[in-house]
């Protein structure tokens, strides 16, 4: 999934989760969080923007949730079970969960919420993810049964995303007056200025949240945001640019929470257009660029190199980083084999205003020059990039990123030959076959093997230049505790508290 705004954070799966140590939580207080852009509406069914979900996660809940390691844990549903054929999923809801308007949440609300998502009039961007639902039964007030058209391995994890939140459908203006079951309820939203939330005393997790008030301040300028953090005007900054990390580390009033993100940066190649229609040329690109060099130069070392379309934090990850070790000689050899011994000219498109992709492209251009490839750098504004590069596939190469998901299927199936998201024009019948099998398989080991083969295929065919999984840094004042990082686009403020002020 494309990174509209990059707010993906994931705890290291091999080390302790990225959490601040649990001292005794302090009740009360106001937390001010600086976010980079104005949410595009507070209706969870009508948006996909990461920055929106940073706010919205605190207003609504989902049937199930993801913990910091990517495991699915109970949310509004206490437990669930799937039928052996994978076509029937039954969820048992918690009792006594209240909406902010006082009404109790029941199975009817779950049914109504999903029907709302699937209703074309709602224009939900993620409706497709739930199209596998045939119909929903509510045998009693606290039991919901989903009947699926076919088994879908990603179904459970798809219910953990913010865009599957349970809403009271009688509220007509959720975009501007959100009402949910979440730990905070809505106070006000002054667009381009701030969103203010206050504690919901009847939240279903007793004792949470700790904070009285949360204010999300919309501050697009990175320098101003950091100045505000240092001055104590904001308590948390959503994203610290990599070049500022070293300096902030030295500041005694600030602490940083860092984790590798559930996302990747790549240079996508159009496999259907010369010169990247030839496998040797694509492989040459992978040999010609030193990934660690790009990470150092473009991201100040804040990232881990990758070899295929999967971040290291995923349980399905296979380490293919050394498939194409840095070797300009090998690159030139392959180019000659492909008939490009004189090199060639290529246009590299950079999406504005995404600085990290622009920097990556600039560094890559330098590496390519060394093997005789002349790069012309062009910048497209985001809307134009979406139209011409992503939809229109009218490009040769472009630097972009993709947000990881809880399940590898939605992340990897863009490479299926007839996928609408296959903007790299990859065409491999074996890959299509693997993805088809893995999407319906229920055995974790079997899926792991299949996705491992998928990653190896992508690496072998050098479909794109797989650069890195960036490191994510959230900056906050020392008094803020309980901050947890998740593999999905959210800021979960339930566990956060301040030790003073």
């Amino acid at each position, binding site marked *: 999934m494309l990174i509209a705004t990059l707010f993906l954070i994931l705890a290291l799966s091999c080390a302790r989760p990225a959490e601040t140590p649990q001292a005794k939580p302090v009740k009360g207080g106001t937390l001010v969080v600086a976010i980079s852009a104005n949410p595009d*509406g507070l209706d969870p069914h009508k948006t996909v923007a990461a920055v929106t979900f940073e706010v919205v996660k605190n207003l609504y809940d989902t049937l199930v949730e993801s913990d910091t390691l990517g495991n699915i844990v109970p949310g509004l549903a206490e437990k669930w079970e799937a039928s052996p054929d994978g076509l029937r999923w039954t969820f048992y809801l918690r009792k006594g969960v209240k909406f902010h308007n006082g009404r109790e949440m029941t199975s009817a609300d779950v049914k109504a919420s999903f029907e709302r998502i699937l209703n074309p009039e709602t*224009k939900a961007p*993620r409706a497709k993810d739930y199209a596998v639902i045939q119909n929903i039964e509510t045998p009693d007030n606290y039991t919901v049964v989903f009947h699926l058209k076919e088994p879908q391995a990603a179904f459970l994890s798809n219910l953990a995303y913010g865009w599957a939140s349970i809403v009271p459908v009688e509220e007509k203006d959720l975009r501007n007056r959100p009402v949910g079951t979440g730990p905070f309820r809505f106070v006000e939203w002054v667009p*381009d200025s701030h969103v203010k939330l206050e504690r919901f005393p009847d939240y279903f997790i007793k004792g949470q949240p700790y904070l009285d008030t949360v204010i999300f301040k919309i501050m697009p*300028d990175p*320098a101003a945001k950091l*100045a505000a953090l240092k001055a104590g005007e904001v308590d948390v900054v959503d994203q610290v640019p990599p070049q500022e990390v070293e300096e902030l580390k030295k500041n005694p009033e600030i602490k940083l929470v860092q984790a590798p993100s559930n996302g990747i940066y790549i240079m996508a190649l159009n496999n259907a257009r010369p010169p990247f229609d030839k496998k040797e040329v694509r492989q040459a690109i992978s040999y010609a660029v030193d990934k660690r060099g790009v990470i150092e130069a473009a991201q100040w070392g804040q990232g881990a190199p990758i070899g295929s379309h999967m971040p290291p934090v995923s349980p399905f990850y296979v380490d293919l980083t050394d498939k194409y070790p840095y070797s300009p000689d090998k690159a030139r050899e392959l180019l000659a084999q492909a008939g490009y011994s004189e090199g060639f000219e290529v246009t590299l498109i950079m999406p504005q205003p995404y600085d990290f992709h622009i920097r990556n492209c600039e560094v890559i251009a330098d590496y390519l020059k060394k093997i005789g490839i002349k790069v012309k750098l062009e910048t497209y504004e*985001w*809307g*134009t990039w979406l139209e011409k590069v992503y939809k229109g596939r009218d490009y040769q190469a472009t630097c972009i990123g993709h947000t990881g998901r809880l399940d590898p299927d939605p992340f990897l199936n863009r490479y299926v030959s007839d996928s609408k998201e296959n903007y790299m024009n990859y065409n491999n019948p074996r890959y299509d076959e693997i993805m088809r099998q893995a999407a319906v398989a229920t055995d974790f080991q079997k899926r792991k093997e299949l996705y491992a083969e998928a990653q190896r295929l992508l690496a072998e065919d050098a479909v794109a230049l797989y650069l890195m999984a960036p490191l994510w840094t959230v900056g906050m004042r020392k008094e803020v505790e309980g901050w947890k990082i998740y593999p999905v686009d959210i800021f979960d403020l339930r566990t956060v508290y301040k030790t003073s002020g």
Partner: protein
Amino acid sequence: MLRRLISLVIVLWLVSFLTFFLLQVIPGDPAQLILGIEASPEALESLRAHLGLDKPWPLRYVAWVTDMLRGNMGMSIRLERPVSALIVERLPVTLSLAFTAMFIALIISFPAGIFSALKWNSPLDYFLLFVTQLGIAIPSFWMGILLILIFSLYFRLFPTGGFVSWWENPLEAFRHLVLPSVSLGLVAAAFLTRMLRSSMLEVLNQAYITAAKAKGLMSYQVIFRHALKNALIPVITLAGIQWSFLMGGSIVIEQVFALPGLGRLLLSAVYTRDIPLIQGLVMFITTVVVVSNFIVDLLYAYLDPRIRLE
């Protein structure tokens, strides 16, 4: 007078046509930007129909213009609210900023420009020339960030950004406006000072000024009654342009200081191809510019009776 009014209307009409037409031809589909990249073709088609984007453009243009003349500027696609309501909401921010910046610019540039001209070629003059050169060269956003670092972070005198309305808390409102207004105002002041200085110098060398002095008029009478009024004409022109620029929404300053003004609204409207909002904002800003110029023309007539307004 009538001629001027007619040309005002013509300009507004031309701008409306140009804006509308340009928005039709640039790449970027509003429906796609709303529904995201995974939307099905049917969903896109139905949204386009819902937004009225499937009708031929001449019809849509006429519908839009007639609506506007009746006061209806359309609905924002993205924010699902009337464009006029959105503009009214953001207007106080941009107005406060523009007024304060203009005020700062004027109270600095008038004394500075006049003294600079009177003390021509003196150390004071050279100093002012140097400072104004800096002011012209320095981009306002850089000045803004610098001011934040010095006065918000180091001295903790002013907040780093945000907007508080005058009704809520006048003192806080003022504190939040100081740094952004100064960033804009200082830069504007630099231009105005230069303009006033050169204009004054030109006027002071005129024969009628020497005549006035010879007649025995006191210096300040010479300056204010005779010289200044005549020197003001090019300055007023420049001030009018600067005012239009400030009202147009100083996008970058609004970004740096996190002010919810018209500039940021326009920027996000362009990014999301929110066509009704873009059109509404452009027409609003154009109207402000055109009306400002008209007022400037009226001021000319007051200042210089030789200029007639037919």
